[in-house]
Structures are given as structure tokens and as C-alpha cells.
């Protein structure tokens, strides 16, 4: 057994024991027990670092699979890693880009701007002008940031994933994690980790977002310098502003917070329902508010993809939520893979209707409460939740949280209502839809007239 393997086993077992004690040996309520264990798992993941930080981040966006308590707790996960000295990163940059740093950048700061478990970010100044995929040219002297994968990270993360797989195969762990598809989750996690270890993937997503949002002057995405990019190094335009997590009230006073919150929420709806690509890791640290009141998107580590058919179905499901129409929401959820067995349809519809009335009616709405309540309802009834569906519900809840940081009184459903209504209205005019629906319309009209 390797030293790392022993550390993982000890840390996780200790977390399990502490969780058992904190939940008074299972004598507390089920939700208090889950919360106690979730806090211990989070601390253990922080202690273990490496792939466990990434695993925790993945869990935080999957309340459908791992439960609300654990997902919420993992949102608080802190990436406490010490910065790597620049002297260790310099050879990686030069070997990856095939040139001495002095010919690539006019200057580069040795002190990092940001440090995380996978990569470290340094400010730099471009030595040559660059024409990006979209947007204006970055001139000589343009301020950029250089993101570098920390040395040894890839091997360490892959070792941790192998250890996590070995650990997850133990019978006791399987029993503790019953109800969770551990193998599929680890498979998905390993794949997302490999994507994250190649920074070019993030660069391509950023370019596509910049293109998608080209008509919107309020949204800004950093431009990528592809001549200075490799799997382990990514150079991109530097963004100035405030991370949403750092925005003080005084700074908020300088921007039109309500307009910005509405715009941010609408931009997310556009990603989901128009472009079919959405930023699925929209926590407040990944968003900047620029001094000229624009929203800058950063870190495209987790991105959701949707087909045109899925986009239409999502608009309908969202319309079902917004207009408190449980039938519509369930009908189109089935097309997205949320299949309710016939004998449970009536019960699920009733429970969903009650949840909609409780959380989405009578004044202000609470999508987070509703979304997680809905996922819990499906789980309680043993209904499988496709990963994309869970990710989307969580993302919408996060968008609500992010928008509320800007403007606490924003009602996300008020923003969504005209958007989904227009989307569905526009799709109604499509010839294929008309051809599909007209016979039904005719039969329904005649049935009413002749009744």
C-alpha cells in the first residue's frame, strides 16, 4: 500500500468515524445525519487535496446524484494549496511553447495571481500582437494571464483517481454510498479531469462563448492567444474587475445591480435554450463584474451541451415550472429522460404541483428550493435522473444564487417567464411543428364543438 493510499484510507475512515459520532451514532434525524457526514467528507476532501478537490467540485454540481446536503457542503470546499515557485513553472512554459519566455512575453510576474489545485495563473504582457479567433486584435503590450498546469499534477490526479476507484470498490464503502452509481460517477469524473488537464479544451470553449455572445456588449469573454497555448499552458486576455464573491456593497453601488443581475440570468437562459452550450460551474468566483458594468465569464472547466431537441424540451419544462403547470413539466421531462412509471404518475404530479405552489407561487419564487426539492422528489420515488438534467437544475439554482448576490430581490422566474414564453411561441411557427400539431388542433376543436 503506497503512502498516499494509506493517507486516503486513514483520512476517509476518520471522517466516517467523526460523522458517526457527530450524528450521535445514527440517532439524529436523517437530514441531520446526512449534514454531519457531508461536513466531515468535505473536511476530509480538503485535507486530501489533489483529485479530491476536483471530485468535491464535481459533487457540488450534482445534487441529483449525491444529495442536496453533500452538494451544498462541497460548495464550501476550499482549495488550500501553496503556490508553486515560478522557477518550477518557467521550464514548463518554455518547453510547451518551444521558445524562451523573454521572446513570448515582454514581462511576466513571478508572483501568481491565483493558485488552485490543478493550475496556477501569472500576469504577463504580450511581446507580439495577436489576432484572436473572435474580437479585436490584442496589441503588443496587451495584458494577459498565463495559466499553467502545476508540475506533477496530472500524475498525482491520475493516481488519486485510481485510489478512489480502489477505495470505492470496498464493500463497506459501497454500503455507505448506496443509491449512488459510484462507477459511473468516477468514470465521468476521470473523463472531466482529463479534459481539465488539457487547457486547450477550455480555450476552445472560451472562443465559442465569445462568438455566441458577439451581439451582446454586456458579456465579455477573455480572448485566447493560440500561439502561446499548449496542453499545459494557456495564455488569455487579462480581465479587470471584481469577482462576484469579492464584490462589496460600495462597489455594487457603482453599477446598476438590478440590470446586471437580470442580464446575467438572461444570458444563462440564452446559453441553455439558444446556443445549447452553458457554463455549468457558475459560482461567484468564476464571474467578474468589470468597472464598465459588464459581466466577464472565466474558467470554462465544466460546460453542459444540449441538442436542439433537448433545448426545446428544456424550454417547455421551464415553462411548466414558471407557469406552475406540473403536467407540462413532467410531459417534457420524460423526453429528457426523466421517466415516471405509470403507477407513480398521479402521485408525482400531485407532489410536484404542491412543491410548485409552495416555492414558485404567491409573490417571490425560490428556484433553488424548488429545484432541489424536485430532484429529491424524483429520488424518493426511485426515478432515475439523467446527469445532464441534474446538472441543469443545479446550474439554474446557481444562477439564481449568483443573480441574488448582485440584486437580492431578483425573481429569477420573472426573468425566465418572458424568455421561455417567447422561445415556445417562436418554435410554434416552425412548419414541422405546425404539420405535427394541426391534426390534433382540428380534432380537439371539432370534439369541443360537437360535444
Amino acid at each position, binding site marked *: 500500500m503506497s503512502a498516499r493510499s494509506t493517507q486516503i484510507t486513514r483520512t476517509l475512515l476518520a471522517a466516517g468515524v467523526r460523522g458517526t459520532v457527530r450524528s450521535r451514532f445514527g440517532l439524529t434525524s436523517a437530514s441531520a445525519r446526512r449534514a454531519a457526514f457531508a461536513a466531515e467528507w468535505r473536511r476530509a476532501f480538503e485535507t486530501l487535496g489533489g483529485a479530491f478537490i476536483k471530485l468535491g467540485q464535481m459533487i457540488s454540481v450534482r445534487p441529483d446524484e449525491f444529495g442536496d446536503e453533500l452538494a451544498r457542503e462541497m460548495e464550501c470546499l476550499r482549495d488550500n494549496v501553496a503556490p508553486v515557485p515560478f522557477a518550477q513553472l518557467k521550464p514548463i512554459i518554455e518547453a510547451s511553447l518551444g521558445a524562451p519566455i523573454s521572446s513570448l512575453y515582454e514581462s511576466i510576474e513571478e508572483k501568481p495571481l491565483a493558485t488552485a489545485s490543478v493550475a496556477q495563473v501569472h500576469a504577463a504582457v504580450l511581446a507580439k500582437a495577436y489576432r484572436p479567433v473572435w474580437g479585436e486584435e490584442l496589441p503588443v503590450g496587451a495584458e494577459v494571464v498565463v495559466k499553467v498546469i502545476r508540475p506533477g499534477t496530472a500524475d498525482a490526479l491520475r493516481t488519486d483517481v485510481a485510489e478512489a476507484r480502489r477505495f470505492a470498490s470496498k464493500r463497506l464503502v459501497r454500503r455507505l454510498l448506496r443509491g449512488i452509481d459510484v462507477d459511473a460517477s468516477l468514470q465521468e469524473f476521470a473523463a472531466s479531469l482529463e479534459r481539465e488537464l488539457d487547457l486547450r479544451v477550455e480555450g476552445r470553449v472560451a472562443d465559442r462563448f465569445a462568438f455566441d455572445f458577439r451581439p451582446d456588449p454586456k458579456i465579455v469573454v477573455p480572448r485566447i492567444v*493560440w500561439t502561446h497555448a499548449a496542453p499545459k499552458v494557456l495564455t488569455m486576455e487579462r480581465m479587470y474587475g471584481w469577482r462576484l464573491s469579492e464584490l462589496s456593497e460600495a462597489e455594487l453601488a457603482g453599477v446598476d445591480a438590478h440590470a446586471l443581475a437580470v442580464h446575467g440570468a438572461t444570458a444563462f437562459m440564452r446559453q441553455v435554450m439558444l446556443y445549447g452550450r452553458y457554463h455549468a460551474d457558475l459560482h461567484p468566483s468564476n464571474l467578474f463584474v468589470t468597472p464598465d458594468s459588464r459581466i466577464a465569464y472565466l474558467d470554462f472547466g465544466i460546460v453542459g451541451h444540449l441538442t436542439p431537441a433537448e433545448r426545446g424540451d428544456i424550454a417547455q419544462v421551464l415553462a411548466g415550472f414558471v*407557469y406552475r403547470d406540473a403536467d407540462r413539466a413532467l410531459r417534457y421531462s420524460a423526453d429528457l429522460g426523466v421517466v415516471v412509471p405509470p403507477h407513480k404518475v398521479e402521485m408525482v404530479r400531485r407532489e410536484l404541483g404542491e412543491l410548485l405552489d409552495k416555492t414558485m407561487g404567491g409573490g417571490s419564487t425560490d428556484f433553488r428550493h424548488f429545484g432541489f426539492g424536485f430532484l429529491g422528489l424524483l429520488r424518493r420515488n426511485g426515478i432515475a435522473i439523467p446527469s445532464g438534467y441534474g446538472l441543469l437544475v443545479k446550474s439554474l439554482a446557481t444562477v439564481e444564487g449568483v443573480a441574488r448576490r448582485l440584486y437580492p430581490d431578483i425573481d429569477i422566474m420573472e426573468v425566465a417567464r418572458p424568455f421561455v414564453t417567447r422561445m415556445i411561441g417562436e418554435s410554434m411557427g416552425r412548419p414541422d411543428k405546425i404539420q405535427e400539431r394541426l391534426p390534433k388542433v382540428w380534432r380537439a376543436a371539432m370534439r369541443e364543438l360537437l360535444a
Partner: protein
Amino acid sequence: MADFDPMKFFALWMFTHDQADDLMVQSVERGSAVAGEGMSGGADAFTDGFMAMVAQEKARLKEQIASGKLDEAVNPQDEALEEVRFEVAELRAAVQQMQTTLDAIAAHVVPTGA
């Protein structure tokens, strides 16, 4: 069958229109009251919300006609051209990145006889 009575026919036609108009106005009113407690929710709520938006669109159209400034339609060809431009720019970026990789490999290769 009785003879065709144009008066009765037009009266029926007018009545149908009146009824439809009343129902439409009621739907718009319900849909406009969607904020907060105004919205009843349920299967018909979407239709009402949709009709309220149609009424807003009608008001906007009326204003535009009155001012003589109609929206310019987006040319689908321009959209397609932009998409192609983006794809070409992506290809250019991919080639540039490959060149960087080649440079990096070349920088590591020690020339024979050196």
C-alpha cells in the same frame, strides 16, 4: 333547407368575432397579471402569458408603424457568413497552436552530430 340569409350569416360571423375578441382580451388581462399572486398557474397560465406577450408585441408594432421605423430583418446569409468566419478563425488558431507544438518539439530535438 331554408334559403341562405346573408343577414343571419354576417350576424353569426360578427358574433363569433366578438366572442373571440372578448376571450382574447380576457386572456391578455389574465396574462398581464402574472407577476406574483396575479398568476393562477396551471395548464392555461402559459396561454394567458403568451397572449399577454402577443399584446405587447402588437403595441410595439403599432408604435413602429406610427413612427415609420420598422425593425430590419436579420439576413440569414450574414449569420451563415459569420459562422463560417468563426470556423475559419478556429482552424487558423488550431494551425497556430500546432505550429507552437512543432516548435516545442523541434526545440527539444538535439541535432545529430552536435
